[in-house]
């Protein structure tokens, strides 16, 4: 399943003051106004918001694939993979929701472009300066990116719930409520896990002089990170 918006995948977008979109791929607010028709909501705005949320889920999937491949801890790796799989289902849920309310999952809103930049910044922050930090801190940087991503994700779905509540009874409300019921509980679990795990990782390091000892060999550090959560239950 594609997790990226591109020309060959049928992407469309909206021209903005400094963004040109080829006419054959350009959409207007007038065209987007048909989204969530009959709800009294601003259709073009809803289209933009849903596209934004979809972009964030797609970026979240990329983030999990990246950190799952880079972490040295098997417990984190497994959990990142699980969260990535669930995030991929959220991508599907959102694509279906967008189609159900009269939108196009291939549409990339200006807000979605901004979110891609934000999310890419968080992801790049987890590896572009990896030479500046030790292996343990690299783990924390990856987890920081996950916490940020999950915080926004959770807020997105809470907002989706509020939007659903604001809709009059009808197919759009039904579609939104159904999607929220499917995803929001998992998002609550994700953000809680991410925050708890981050706290736990920091506490473990704070309580262990050995963890950040300067001069520890790479092998020693990897071994320590690998067994980091062996002695206690892991949240989530």
């Amino acid at each position: 399943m594609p997790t990226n918006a591109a020309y060959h995948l049928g992407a469309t977008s909206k021209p903005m003051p400094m963004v040109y979109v080829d006419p054959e791929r350009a959409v207007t607010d007038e065209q987007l106004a048909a989204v969530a028709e009959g709800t009294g909501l601003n259709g073009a705005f809803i289209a933009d918001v849903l596209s934004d949320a979809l972009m964030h889920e797609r970026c979240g999937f990329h983030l999990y694939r990246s950190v799952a491949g880079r972490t040295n801890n098997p417990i984190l790796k497994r959990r990142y993979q699980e969260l990535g799989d669930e995030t991929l289902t959220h991508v599907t849920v959102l694509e279906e929701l967008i189609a159900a309310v009269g939108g196009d999952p291939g549409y990339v809103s200006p807000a979605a472009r901004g979110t891609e930049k934000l999310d890419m910044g968080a992801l790049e922050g987890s590896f572009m300066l990896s030479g500046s930090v030790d292996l343990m801190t690299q783990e924390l940087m990856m987890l920081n990116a996950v916490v940020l991503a999950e915080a926004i994700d959770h807020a997105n779905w809470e907002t989706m719930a509020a939007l659903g509540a604001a809709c009059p009874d009808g197919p759009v409300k039904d579609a939104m409520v159904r999607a929220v019921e499917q995803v929001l509980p998992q998002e609550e679990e994700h953000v809680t896990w991410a925050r708890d795990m981050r706290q736990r990782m920091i506490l473990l390091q704070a309580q262990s002089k050995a963890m950040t000892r300067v001069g520890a060999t790479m092998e020693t550090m990897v071994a320590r990170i690998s067994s980091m959560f062996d002695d206690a239950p892991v949240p989530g």
Partner: protein
Amino acid sequence: MGFNPLEHEGIPVDQQFRSWKELNVDPLPARPDDPYTMTRVILMNGIEVEAAMFSHQFARHTDNPEIKRSLAVSRRIEQQQQKAVNWLLPGENSVLETTIGYEQVAVDLTAWLARNEPDPHLKQALDFALLEDFDHLYRYSNLYEMIQSGRAAELTKGLTEITPGRPTFAHHRHPVDELRRHYATQTVNPLSRLHVMTIVAAEQQTMNYYMNTGPDFIEPIARSLYLEIAQVEEQHVSHYESLLDPLDSWLANLLYHEATEVYLYWSMFQQESDPRVKQLWELHLNFEIGHLQEAARMLRRFEGREPEELLPPELPGIPLTFETNKDYVRSVLAAQLDLRTDEEDYVPVDDLPADHRFFAFQDKANGDGVPSEDVITQNVEANGRDYRDETEGPNPIVDLRQPAGQA
């Protein structure tokens, strides 16, 4: 049919280093049978320079050891490729003769890209600067006749006309009018992305060449003409690079750079008439596929993205081609001579208000004389007429035709 370079292994990066002897290739003859062999060399040199400089910039924004080491290896190879390509240029040619080659690249590359560009906004950007590079060819050709008694048509072989375009004095715009709207990376046609990345690299190399070789001349008219046109080339780099979407990440950009190089070496290979040079294009094509595979690996590892989702299923099946574009250039000249820019928009000069910054900038830059005009005046004084190679008849713009009695 195009091909999907991701389905090929190419030559692994660790097998690409070459000896000094291998890199120090025998140069082309000063007047090759096919002048487009020379233009292909000039273009691919610019592409390799961009590859190296992009890699340097990327390396300055990361201390990830794995990425830095990978960049260092591929960058060294790109630099070796640049040497093997650029050292094909014949040393017996003067800077000015090579410059005429650069302008033939600028004209026939830009025109071909514009003819094949599917996006009207990007086509307009190409058409706009085409007329300016076309005029540069005319100005340098007059300088060539004046200081070296040379005939530029012997270099271009009559494949590219030499006649005034949008006059160079009119190119000097305020910098804020040099910036265009950019494409959106998600919706841009892959062919358009290749076109923009190619023209940015080509214009950047032209800028670099003039800004560095201009002071090598003794003749004041040559020094001043290079200075003036070097500034315009900076404008063209600003113009074209502003078309690129700043949303793309460093690693995505690396992938796009490598894909562009693959497409271009494949294109050069398809059309090359010199068997020895053709072999070089093929070798470098296989090198670039190796670089692309390495960029794809890093994209997967660090960004968790599949390169197949960023790149099209196959590269364009039509090779970028150096060929004559006389009719096209004439048609653009006839239609767009008087076009100027106002922030991101193109406007006829007559539509600019009298107090527009364009005119203020013109007054400042051109206030003490204009070398690109002086070179024509001086050549007319020396030879009784300006130098032209109008194979298809007089200039389509009446005001730009050679005055009666000069021809």
